[in-house]
């Protein structure tokens, strides 16, 4: 199951674990990603708050936690290959895995169709 936050993060759920990344729409807006400031494993995150950032040539962008929980894994490949976020944002360019504390929060996220509509509106 894949869901989307209005702040352009995607979430893929497997049991209690949510894999999080930024969408293709978001990476296109950001431009060339040159540095991903990954959080520490073990960091507690709260839905809707900024918990890490991505630097592109143009600007730094905060990434918001789409769900609350604990970061249990980060994509260390991004330390050497931040460009994976541009090349494969919804695959190899994933950011973190979060162990969710409240799966009901997933209900607040958008499904693919609603997210597509949001992107069209934002242009």
């Amino acid at each position, binding site marked *: 199951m894949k869901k989307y936050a209005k702040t352009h993060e995607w979430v893929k759920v497997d049991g209690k674990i949510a894999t999080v990344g930024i969408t293709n729409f978001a990476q296109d807006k950001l*431009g*060339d990603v*040159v*540095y991903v*400031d990954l959080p520490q494993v073990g960091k507690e995150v709260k839905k809707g708050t900024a918990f890490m950032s991505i*630097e592109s*040539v143009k*600007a*730094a962008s905060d990434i918001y936690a789409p769900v609350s929980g604990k970061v249990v894994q980060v994509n260390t490949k991004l330390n050497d290959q931040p460009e994976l976020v*541009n090349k494969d944002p919804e695959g190899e360019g994933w950011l973190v895995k979060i162990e969710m504390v409240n799966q009901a929060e997933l209900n607040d996220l958008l499904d693919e169709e609603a997210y597509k509509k949001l992107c069209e509106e934002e242009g």
Partner: protein
Amino acid sequence: MKRTPLYENHIVLNAKMVDFAGWEMPIQYESITNEVMSVRKNIGIFDVSHMGEILIEGDDTAKFVDYLLTNSFGSMKIGQVMYTTMCNEKGGIIDDLLTYRLGENRAMLVVNAANTQKDFNWIVEKSATFNVKVSDLSMDYGLIAVQGPTSEEFLRRFAPDVINLSYYTFASYTIFGKYCIISRTGYTGEDGFEIYCKWNDTPFIWEELLTRGENFSVKPAGLGARDVCRLEASYMLYGNDMDENTTPLEAGLSWVVKFEKDFIGKENLLKQKEEGLKKRIRGLEILDKKIARHGMEIFKNGEKVGVITSGTFSPTLGKSIALAMLDSQLKISDEVEVDIRGTRVKARIVKLPFYRGSVKIS
């Protein structure tokens, strides 16, 4: 919002357009990094038609332009170009610009897009007691910058005489059947040329350059790449690294201030020179991959010692670089800390330029 003559061409190329100083400009076409590499290795072409062109002509041209600008117009030969600042009475920079000596009594000033109206008004006001006529030709001319190490080889195919242009000189040409002025100038740190042509001829020349440039890997490059290139080459950007509260001495531009003649702001600049600078622009290498951006504060031993004026990740050097207005007591290789969104990140003061390209300084 204003549009350059190349607006439609940018749309066709699928450029991302942004508002830049009231102009709808391409920030990037495909990727800023790739566009920077294209300029560094082959050729990038930029639409810089938004820049302002101000013509000054009349018997007092030399006298007036020398009074107006900090650098020496009087010592220029016809066919030469000069980089200079234009200051207010306090010695603050109104703009940084290029001056073209078109004739004994004719000068063209090429100014920043954001400042065109301000500069024009200032120049007209200051010209009152001189026998000169000042005209704003900004909407008459388009401007294309052809930048990169192979740009001479490329342009020679259509304008063989460009080989005779040395750095910071210009001449008139007919390329692709259109009249234009070509100067060996640019703001990327690479060898290159700038082509001034009639507004309506600009799209045709742009298309010809792209089509005929296939073998030279000529790529369009946007404002994003332009900003990275100019920062790697340590060229100052008006509005970021300098403004009316910065003097050319503080901006590291003392070489464009000629104290042996009279000019607006001389008295205060002379005073500043004699008293010594309190702050000055320096280069910083950020000792982390994080990027320092305009306005971020700089500390040493817990005390604020300056502010970032420009910062980027340099794809050419593979590291994060910045220009900063720093306490003049600080020296090359001193370490400081930049506050990057709440985290203090180490940085080292380094000698400028960060990068030296293929510019042929004779």
